[in-house]
């Protein structure tokens, strides 16, 4: 760890320390706060793009029969919805939070590699543009599922190579972002900020960054083999040439399972940051939280084939992946226990960020439990590829990752803008979301157990009622998210008019460094390292 001091450019002709004027500021920026904002805004836009696709899906499924879209377009929608949400919304939003918060939390002047930071954002935009362009191509957007399984994926039309190269660009973007996070955390901490004094958000991102560097090249390799199989005569996934389509699934899920943890570990980190502030207590079991995060990350590499129980594996493989998967419930349980224990006997208040965080703890636990159910290999034959698994991963993603992203927005908006958001509308947003998300996804458990397959535009008549309920929930949920956009814009433009203090939330500065700088946070923070390191959070 080095003592770092920022030097603001007396080599060049800038006089002030503030941002440049005009749109070029955003294009050429190397400032971690600007780049963080870019990522967050981009993520929010993609959240609505992906959301619109989800509403196309739920409209079609409102009733049995084919009513709005043709089946191929429906399949494009399920595929693109997943890709846009995973790579365009959730991951970028967390990278945005990392950019904004990690330097401020560890007392660093900026990210370690600012130019690369700029590039990784634009690589993301380039990747998403390539992907989005496929919507307008002959044969439509990719429609074989976000998993790109061969040989089905080869039936995609002109979109096929674009989707592959989009994955390459997104991978480069993520790897560069992750390298930056690691270099920043290892090299830029303020004196006194030892690893075990870092806020958990920083810890979880550190571990997430390792996951990303290990898995994105794997995904890139897998899609490269798809590309050469289709265009350059290779036989990786073709049994006639000695290859095996199941090989693709192994490689994909070696990436894919850690990938879901890439979306959930920073979620855990934000929750562990918010809950202590509103419970007015230190986080319960700080060290065990760090170790549990590490354990989850390690396990995530050795459980991938729980996605392949029905595909055909030697029995020894089925058993191994079943038991290994079950192990994940242990460190996950430690986390849920610690969040609960943090709230226990705390003097809690229920501002919007806390409401979202509590809902996260409850609803994520449900998603974890359905995961545990599906980890039982023989039973998974019943659940696999049904709406049950759709319900599972949406519980772990929407009321978990997305809720926590919303919570993070409410939590830090006052710090970012210097204004207070409208608490009333915030709570309305929360209650609408929390109720509708359950109307949306809970019935999908029943549909799945009753045998409704995922990724189909039409279904048997006995599934009609719960599908209708689910679609109604989807529309309420989707439209209530517009409240969030309203609140964000309103807060940027002055919010409630009340000027917030540096600390914003009562005693927050005891927990983490970002609450010791002015609100709104100046363009450059911690040009000289902080004098005191907060220790309340562990």
């Amino acid at each position: 760890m080095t003592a770092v001091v920022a030097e603001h450019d007396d080599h060049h002709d800038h006089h002030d320390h503030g941002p440049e004027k005009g749109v070029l500021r955003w294009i050429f920026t190397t400032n971690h706060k600007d780049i963080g904002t870019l990522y967050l805004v981009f993520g929010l836009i993609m959240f609505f793009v992906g959301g619109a696709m989800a509403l196309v899906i739920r409209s079609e499924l409102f009733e049995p029969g084919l009513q709005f879209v043709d089946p191929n377009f429906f399949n494009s929608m399920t595929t693109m919805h997943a890709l846009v949400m995973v790579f365009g919304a959730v991951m970028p939003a967390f990278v945005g939070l990392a950019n904004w918060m990690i330097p401020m939390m560890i007392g660093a002047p900026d990210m370690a590699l600012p130019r690369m930071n700029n590039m990784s954002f634009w690589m993301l935009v380039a990747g998403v543009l390539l992907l989005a362009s496929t919507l307008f191509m002959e044969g439509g957007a990719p429609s074989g599922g976000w998993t790109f399984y061969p040989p089905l994926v080869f039936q995609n039309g002109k979109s096929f190579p674009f989707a592959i190269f989009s994955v390459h660009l997104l991978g480069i973007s993520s790897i560069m972002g992750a390298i930056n996070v690691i270099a920043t955390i290892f090299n830029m901490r303020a004196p006194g900020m030892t690893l075990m004094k870092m806020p958990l958000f920083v810890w979880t991102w550190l571990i997430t960054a390792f996951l990303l560097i290990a898995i994105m090249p794997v995904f890139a390799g897998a899609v490269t083999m798809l590309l050469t199989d289709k265009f350059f005569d290779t036989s990786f996934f073709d049994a006639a040439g000695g290859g095996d389509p199941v090989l693709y699934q192994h490689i994909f899920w070696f990436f894919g399972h850690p990938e879901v943890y890439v979306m959930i570990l920073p979620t855990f980190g934000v929750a562990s940051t918010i809950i202590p502030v509103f419970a007015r207590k230190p986080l319960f079991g700080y060290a065990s939280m760090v170790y549990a995060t590490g354990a989850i990350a390690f396990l995530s590499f050795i459980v991938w084939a729980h996605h392949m129980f029905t595909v055909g594996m030697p029995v020894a493989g089925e058993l191994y992946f079943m038991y290994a998967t079950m192990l994940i419930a242990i460190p996950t349980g430690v986390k849920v226990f610690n969040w609960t224990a943090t709230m226990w006997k705390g003097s809690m208040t229920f501002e919007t960020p806390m409401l979202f965080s509590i809902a996260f703890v409850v609803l994520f636990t449900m998603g974890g439990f359905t995961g545990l159910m599906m980890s039982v290999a023989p039973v998974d034959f019943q659940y696999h590829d049904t709406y049950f698994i759709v319900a599972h991963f949406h519980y772990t993603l929407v009321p978990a990752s997305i809720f926590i992203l919303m919570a993070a927005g409410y939590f830090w908006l006052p710090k970012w803008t210097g204004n207070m958001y409208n608490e009333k509308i915030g709570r309305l947003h929360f209650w609408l979301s929390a109720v509708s998300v359950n109307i949306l996804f809970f019935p999908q458990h029943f549909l799945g157990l009753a045998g409704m397959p995922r990724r189909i535009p039409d279904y048997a008549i006995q599934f009609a009622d719960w599908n209708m309920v689910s679609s109604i929930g989807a529309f309420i949920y989707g439209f209530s998210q517009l409240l969030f956009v309203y609140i964000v814009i309103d807060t940027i433009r002055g919010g409630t008019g009340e000027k917030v203090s540096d600390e914003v939330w009562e005693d927050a500065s005891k927990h983490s460094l970002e609450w010791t700088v002015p609100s709104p946070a100046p363009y450059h923070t911690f040009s000289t390292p902080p004098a005191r390191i907060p220790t309340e959070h562990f």
Partner: protein
Amino acid sequence: MSTHDSYYIPHKAVWPVLATGGLMMTLAGFANHLNGSSIGSGMMLTGFVIFLVMLGLWFALQSTESESGMYNHGVGISYRMGMMWFIFSEVMFFAVFFGALWYTRNLSVAWLGETGLPSGPGRSTHDTLWPAFQAVWPTNGPGKVGGDFEPMGAFGLPFLNTLLLLSSGVTCTWAHHGLLAKNRDQLIKGLIATVGLGFLFVGFQATEYYEAYHEMGLTLGSGIYGSTFFMLTGFHGFHVCVGAIILSVVLFRSWKGHFTPENHFAFEAAAWYWHFVDVVWLGLFVFVYMM
């Protein structure tokens, strides 16, 4: 504090976003080309040139800044970490292809040939589609995809190439010792030798490919053997080219007298990359050529 103690944070960056635009154009062009569009290849080449020029300008800027003493020790550490983790990501990329080789050789081909575990998923494929197929390696599969071929032996050009790359690792380290001992002559000679051996390696590999395609019937389309052989050695050869180009730039900068024993990140990064490429080759020699 003095300039030397401060962590340099650039105010804006022009080249990264332009390089990204170039790369995006390259890939969009390539995709169009694969889809049979006539504008594809032109777009791809233009994009690639833009990409390279922008990267070049970016690196030139870094080198100027480094020369004018704007990077302190902390910045150097960040760059080293960046390079280290970048190389790790490359290791994972190669691991996928080694993994595919392992899986097909030991599992899927065995199942197709009925020698694998009885509950292996490929077994029913064997029984219903290709009951006569025997599992042997190398193979182009039960469909004899790509026709008859002769596998690549280890002890011709590949062995020579192993010697070349290993000695280039030695010359690279020798150059580094020269740099540390302020022996400019040794530094430059060492680098020239390293770059030369690198390009010689690429030349021999091109010859090997030529023979494979024209005399041995071995192509990228020769079933799983051809696929794994050419993809692994091809990606590796590409990395050798990139490494040799990086080393050439380092050679140029050494010749301009840029590096000091205390401050030579670019040299170190290039050397690490070169050793990484070396190690991958050893893996290839053992698992692709010998076994």
